[in-house]
């Protein structure tokens, strides 16, 4: 259990996000699946849990907030990181209330999200030990 690969699900309707993040994170040793449709991501979530979920909040025709709410309900231990292009304090606060681990405004640097994922991973490992 200790050495299990940390799994990450990425959901963003802008394909570039998954395309850029997936290979970098895989190179760093994570197990990564990327989705552009929340329907498919939801189906995948039904199949199996992920340690970390990275999701956009405002996507065309989809509500990221709803997605993260469902994820948190089903897997309370999953850490959710929210990225969004239209950051407003209101949305940020709401997502924090839902137990979101951290919040990142687009555009962001690769290094920024890698840092956040690293912190989320550390938290997960710590709670597992306890």
């Amino acid at each position, binding site marked *: 259990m200790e050495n299990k690969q940390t799994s990450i699900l990425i959901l963003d309707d802008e394909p*570039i996000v998954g395309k850029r993040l997936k290979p970098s994170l895989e190179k760093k040793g994570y197990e990564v699946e990327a989705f552009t449709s929340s329907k498919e991501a939801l189906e995948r979530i039904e199949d199996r849990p992920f340690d970390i979920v990275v999701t956009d909040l405002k996507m065309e025709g989809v509500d990221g907030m709803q997605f993260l709410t469902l994820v948190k309900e089903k897997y309370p231990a999953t850490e959710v990181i929210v990225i969004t292009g239209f950051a407003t304090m209101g949305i940020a606060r709401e997502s924090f209330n839902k137990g979101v681990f951290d919040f990142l405004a687009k555009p962001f640097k690769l290094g920024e999200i890698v840092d956040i994922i690293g912190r989320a991973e550390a938290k997960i490992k710590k709670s597992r030990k306890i």
Partner: protein
Amino acid sequence: MKLFDRIYKFFRGQQKEIVPFKILFAEFKKSLELNNQILDLIADANDKLSGDYIFGEQYIQHTCRRLADLVRQLIVTINHLTEQKYSALYTSFHKIEEEIEALLRGRALGQVKDYIMPYAMISRALTDSVGGKNAHLAEIGTLLDHRIPDGFAITTEGFSLFLEENNLRDRILSIRQQWHQSELAVDEASRRIRGAIMEAEVPHKLRLEILAAAEVLSRRHKDITPCFAVRSSALGEDEISSFAGQYLSRLNIPLDEIPQAYKEVLASLYSPEAMEYRLMMDFRPHEIMMAVACQMMVPARASGVLYTYDPVRPEDETMIVNSAWGLGEPIVAGEVPTDHFVIDRRPPYEVRQLEIVHKSETMVLHGCGGTGIDGVQEEQRLQSSLTKEQLRELAEIGMQLEKYFKRPQDIEFAIDQQDRIIILQSRQLRLQHTRAPRACDLSDLSEKYPVLIRGKGIAAMEGIATGPAWVFSEGKNLNDFPMGGVLVACHATPQLARVIHKAAGFITDVGSTTGHLATVAREFRVPALFKTENGTEVIADGEEITLDTECLTVYKGIVQELQYYSIQEEPIEEMYEYRLLRRVLKKIEPLNLTDPTADNFTPEGCKTYHDLTRFVHEKAVETIIDLNFYHAHHRDSQAGKLLWDFPLDLILIDVGGGIEGGHAQGIRPQQITSVPMQALLKGMSYPGIWDMAPAGVDFSSFMSSLTRTSSVRATSPEDVGRNLAVVSAEYTNINFRLGYHFTVIDAFVSDNILDNHIYFRFSGGVTETIRRSRRTRLLAKILTYYDFLCEVYGDIVVARLKRTNRDRILKRLFLLGLLVGFTRQLDVEMVNEETIDIFFNEIRGIMEQKDGK
């Protein structure tokens, strides 16, 4: 009724009040605020191209619309200030906005309706119609006056016509889709599309125009047999993406075969390599466009490639030339050994290193019927393919092209039968990104692992690669290349680039760092070692190997110690979003209006948002000065010209408590009671600050040329000066245009720390890039040292300071005065890197001295 109207209007006109200055000034300030927001937003968007960011189309759309909104507000503001004097700005604005919107919607990119454009009519502005290769080459010929092959472009509009008339668009799209959905293999999809193109007819109209244009060329060159080269000039091919080598060139063909060759070149747009590449780069259908170059054939005696930097070791400050006898095609394809020269980037361009190889084969023209491979005459085989004089001349041309295109260049050239240099192509050279720490330090590796190759070859892209070797030999299919394999081949041919997304590394027996495969390897950061002579012999197919290009070594087995070094950041791929942002920025960022006295300094002359912003700023300052100094005198403001020892044309406008005494005869410095203005002037008049120039410069003429904004027509009050300071007791807003520099300072000083602020913006300066960059670095160094929050975008320096007590603010205003006083000279004087520290220390010395008092 009419009469009544007229009387009404007459009275209304009479009643027109002078708008209070405070209101005008508020509008003026608003325009400055918008101006700053726009420039910051542009700089910020440009920063996103650095490759560190992840951004989507949403960001680009959001930024463009936000910019449009700000620019529109800016135009409204200047029209408020000037009673709608510049309403023509709206027309220019809408035109730019529409162009940007079209780009955002992914509309086709061509701008002209012509099918044919002779080189004499082509400039970079037509890149989206004629392709980068044509556009650059045409400018090298017409604007820089170098020899290029005479020729013309067949535009993307011609390509569109070809697709339309043959109903090819949908057909290609559907085959492409089948391939994307894995219903078709890439080779099959490619074969079908190319087949469809080859079966199609060149539309009659297009055919006639092509032949007529070629006819004109042959008549112009009666002295030589009219043979032609038909080359690709696909969109995007020359800019960043380096897949040019994948497209076809048809060489040495007679006039009547041009239409057929044209089709062949178009078909090469759909070679499997090009299709794979575009899929990887996420090309959209509207981006897949092929313009074509049709040129008079140059019967080359020798050919080669010049890089204005060593792409692997740019810090060496050298240029690289590879050349051989005959035509250039086998040279760029990495198929023949080449002479290799390393030349100093500085005059007199000494050759630092040369390596003359044995050249046994050469590509030559066969009459007017294609090309063939001939043997090289015995005495030429070991002779240098370029003379010393030609190398020097090439170096000179290289530096000139680099300066002109503002980027390191990758230049293809030919030496004609009269021994003249003909430029065939010039495009941006991609340099390798900064390297990870050197791995060579692990010195005991060769004891632990068997060495297959050591100290042989040249690194085309540095790095470490591990994986199974896949030796490309007769009968093997590139499609079978395994994921993560190291490709070992005889020649560094462009076709190998097809597996770039699978390959961990490349090793070849023959090849040069100036070939296409090298370019692609750098683009994808795949380590590549070329010219190992016998790699294909000593490396066995299927064995695990480790390639370390930095040490020119190949080990048998996986060297764990080195693997550590190979883990690097993911390469920044050239995604659609990057291209889109680059494209829209072309309509936003370039500044064409640099000289307010030039003929194009008009609303119609504005071609970008930056132009509009620049125009409005100039006119806003002008308007405030005109209203207060030359024409209406507001009762609530006082205006006068500063009487000073230094010939600075400065108009002061007092909005409350900034100046005492009368203004009619001008304002003496002693009359200024504005606290921030006093501090600034103290700095500006610091002894010696205006003449830090070394002896030899005629001080007075130097001064007048730089500070008199328009000395030629100084007699007309309209033209005297556009330097403006609006002051009150605690506030100063300054807009300076000294020479070509632009400075804005906005400062408030009071006893309340929370209200105090300084804003400083410096930009412009017509000088070579490198000096400009020294100047910005110097300013940033000084300003940061003195606590400013400093940002540098290109040659703009923006510095802010807030919430600082009165004394510290005043000291920093004094500093800004010093800087304004002498930055104008920096361009001339910043001749080397050391000057940064020299000036920095000089300024610090003055500041500390003043502290001591």
